[in-house]
């Protein structure tokens, strides 16, 4: 593509068109983004994930139990999961897909992904398959114009006083964006002399009817109308400045991989509880740590224990559908960081390289963690994805926690790469602004199988073996609730969700104790089908009882779930088991 064949005024006309195209493109990107978020929601609701291990005999989407002879489900061709009747959607008269696969298909069509895939078959060499010609051209304009067009005296570029901290690197406004500002100012300037692309004048009445929108979204439906100005014209840097910065931008990303350690100071209910709240607030203030408003996407990992080298080999294949680390500029330079919790010492941290400008990074990196096999049982693998924004600023993009105590390292099936949904950090979910919930809930649990209860009581119901689940909340550690003296009048609400949608709720009476002393909140759930226990999810929420008709205060909640936890109770029935559950703002808790 040779732009030099164009004369200056022609170039400006084309530039105008490209600017309009860019506006449409950002509208489109936003739409796709929303669509993918919705897809994420659908996936979250009906996904085979860690937290919700499901047995072979339940529908992979709704977790409803499937029968042996009737309503036994069928395998979805898209995902190979067993799906009940209700979770199928017909694509054609003969073919159906499960709800998740169907949603994927829809997104693939509606986002234009199909087109990119088709084109990649023909032009496989293309580095960035998403980039349109218009986009590329706009960039080349930016290069070209530095030679041929003199900007109309841009205002001096001033750096805010706060940005002096890390020198020039810190002020890395993306190159393209600043240039855009410059160009908008340019084109608006040129607009005065040159007429638009074609001379067809639009009906003014029609125009006003079309332009009801917010300024940033305002778009012309006519190709002949004046260019609008979606970006602010201030802060247009001088050209030499821009080049300097464009260069350092690249180098910076490279260097970030080696230097970033700051993001370890992350807020939220984590495995280390020491004063996390205060540190995090300082960090956020300094802009070192940013957590993203939305977490999307998945990460593909494979875990293999290499017994010859005595190390855990974690292969990070890649991620897909990540949120933009920089939502505004649609930028994402992701990398993956791995800890084997509870060890968060910096020298035991593993990291991949940083991939630039992608929300679907491919890493294909194998990270090795030296550890003896028996020790792994007490560890939880934490793989977190970060956007490397600047040298010091990292943006959290999501994480997955994989408890290793039940991991079958000898089993081949567990060694193959698996996609995991990325989750937000439990402690920083929105919903309870201003308060940090952390701490750990200490509980005991035991299951009393039907045989220990009066077996003769219900002979006609022998096919469903009902047992009893007892939960004892004994205390809480490291509870940091602002403005609190230390004495709590606490009570606990518990909600046991059974596979199939049945819910059992219990609530204890308030107990006035010091928050660090022992409690004795007991919840008893009877009528729990023994077979369903592994698929259960227990939500506990700790409340502070208000004395004078004020609303009770939620102090956060915790979850007990996962087949492995329940399995212990089933294996040794009638025995108390201790669990320590990380607490979080319990937005998911149902009001009872």
């Amino acid at each position, binding site marked *: 593509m040779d732009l030099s064949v164009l004369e200056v005024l022609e170039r400006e006309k084309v530039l105008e068109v490209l600017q309009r195209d860019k506006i449409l493109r950002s509208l489109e990107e936003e739409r796709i983004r929303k669509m993918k978020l919705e897809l994420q929601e659908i996936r979250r609701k009906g996904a085979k994930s860690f937290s919700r291990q499901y047995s072979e005999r339940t529908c992979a989407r709704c977790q409803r139990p499937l029968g042996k002879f009737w309503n036994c489900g069928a395998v979805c061709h898209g995902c190979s999961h067993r799906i009940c009747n209700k979770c199928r959607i017909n694509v054609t008269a003969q073919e159906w897909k499960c709800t998740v696969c169907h949603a994927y298909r829809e997104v693939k069509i509606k986002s234009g992904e199909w*087109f990119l895939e088709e084109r990649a078959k023909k032009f496989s060499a293309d580095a960035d398959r998403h980039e349109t*010609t218009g986009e590329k051209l706009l960039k080349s304009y930016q290069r070209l114009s530095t030679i041929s067009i003199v900007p109309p005296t841009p205002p001096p570029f001033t750096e805010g006083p706060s940005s002096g901290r890390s020198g020039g690197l810190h002020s890395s406004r993306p190159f393209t964006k600043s240039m855009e500002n410059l160009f908008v100012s340019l084109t608006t300037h040129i607009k005065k002399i040159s007429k638009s692309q*074609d001379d*067809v004048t639009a009906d003014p009445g029609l125009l006003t009817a079309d332009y009801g*929108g917010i300024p940033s979204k305002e*778009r012309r439906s006519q190709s002949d109308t004046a260019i609008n100005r979606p970006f602010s014209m201030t802060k247009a840097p001088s050209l030499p400045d821009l080049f300097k910065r464009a260069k350092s931008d690249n180098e910076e990303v490279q260097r970030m991989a080696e230097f970033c350690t700051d993001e370890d100071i992350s807020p939220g209910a984590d495995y280390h509880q020491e004063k996390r709240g205060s540190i995090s607030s300082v960090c956020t203030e300094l802009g070192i740590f940013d957590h993203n408003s939305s977490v999307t996407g998945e990460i593909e990992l494979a875990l293999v224990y290499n017994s010859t080298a005595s190390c855990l080999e974690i292969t990070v294949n890649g991620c897909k559908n990540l949120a933009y680390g920089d939502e505004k500029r649609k930028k994402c330079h992701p990398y993956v960081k791995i800890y084997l919790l509870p060890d968060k010492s910096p020298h035991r941290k593993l990291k991949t390289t940083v991939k630039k400008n992608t929300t679907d990074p491919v890493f294909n990196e194998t990270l090795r963690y030296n550890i003896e096999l028996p020790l792994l049982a007490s560890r939880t693998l934490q793989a977190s994805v970060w956007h490397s924004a600047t040298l010091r600023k990292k943006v959290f993009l999501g994480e997955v926690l994989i408890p290793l105590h039940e991991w079958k390292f000898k089993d081949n099936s567990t060694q193959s790469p698996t996609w995991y949904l990325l989750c937000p950090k439990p402690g920083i979910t929105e919903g309870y602004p201003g308060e940090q919930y952390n701490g750990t809930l200490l509980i005991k649990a035991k299951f009393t199988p039907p045989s220990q209860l009066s077996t003769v009581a219900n002979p006609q119901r022998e096919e469903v073996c009902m047992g009893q689940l007892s939960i004892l909340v004994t205390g809480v550690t490291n509870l940091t609730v602002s403005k609190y003296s230390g004495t709590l009048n606490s009570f606990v609400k518990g909600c046991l969700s059974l596979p199939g949608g049945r819910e059992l709720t219990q609530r204890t009476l308030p107990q006035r104790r010091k928050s660090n002393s022992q409690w004795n909140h007991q919840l008893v759930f009877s009528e729990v089908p023994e077979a369903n226990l592994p698929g259960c999810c227990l939500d506990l929420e700790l409340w502070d009882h208000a004395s004078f008709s004020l609303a009770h205060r939620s102090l956060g909640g915790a979850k007990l779930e996962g087949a492995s936890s329940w399995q212990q109770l089933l294996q040794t029935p009638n025995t108390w088991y201790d669990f320590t559950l990380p607490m979080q703002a319990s937005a998911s808790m149902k009001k009872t």
Partner: protein
Amino acid sequence: MFCAVSTMTDGDYDYLIKLLALGDSGVGKTTFLYRYTDNKFNPKFITTVGIDFREKRVVYTATNSNGTTGKTFKVHLQLWDTAGQERFRSLTTAFFRDAMGFLLMFDLTSQQSFLNVRNWMSQLQANAYCENPDIVLVGNKADLADQREVQEKQAKELADKYGIPYFETSAATGSEVDKAVITLLDLVMKRMEQCVDKPAQEAPNGEGTSKLEAAPPNEKKCAC
């Protein structure tokens, strides 16, 4: 099947479909697209500089396999206009790769513009997103009957040879303009579905038609 929607400034649509008009200079691409988006005619001839585009929102009603009408979708059309002149060639063909469907136009009053259709076809083959993209052949300026140089039969034969639909339109009167665009849109919409459903049913030997018989007879049988 389609009808126009008025507001266009929000992201409230289901599909963004990018079509592109190509053909010799002066055949009426710009005028055609203007007629389609705004239903107006401009007799002035202003050379398109390199590239341009227009937009329109339409409602698309899907047809089910049994012929009944199905769901409706909002489609945002981005209609790329290109300059036919040789000096813009490298620029315009670069835009071919981003379009999902093509309006290949010639002037019914110009034999030369018709002869050049073949060249445009090979340009498409080289630059479009795939080897056989969706194309509609458009013979424009049908209203100038007395100046006609290309006969319908001739053009139809060429279209058949390529296996693409053919329309004789007039940007001046608006005749067949909508129909040509709609036909192309419909082809693209169908193509999308095919593309996403294909991998599951793609036979390794490439014989697409035999796959239905090849399906396992006991599909419904429960595996457990």
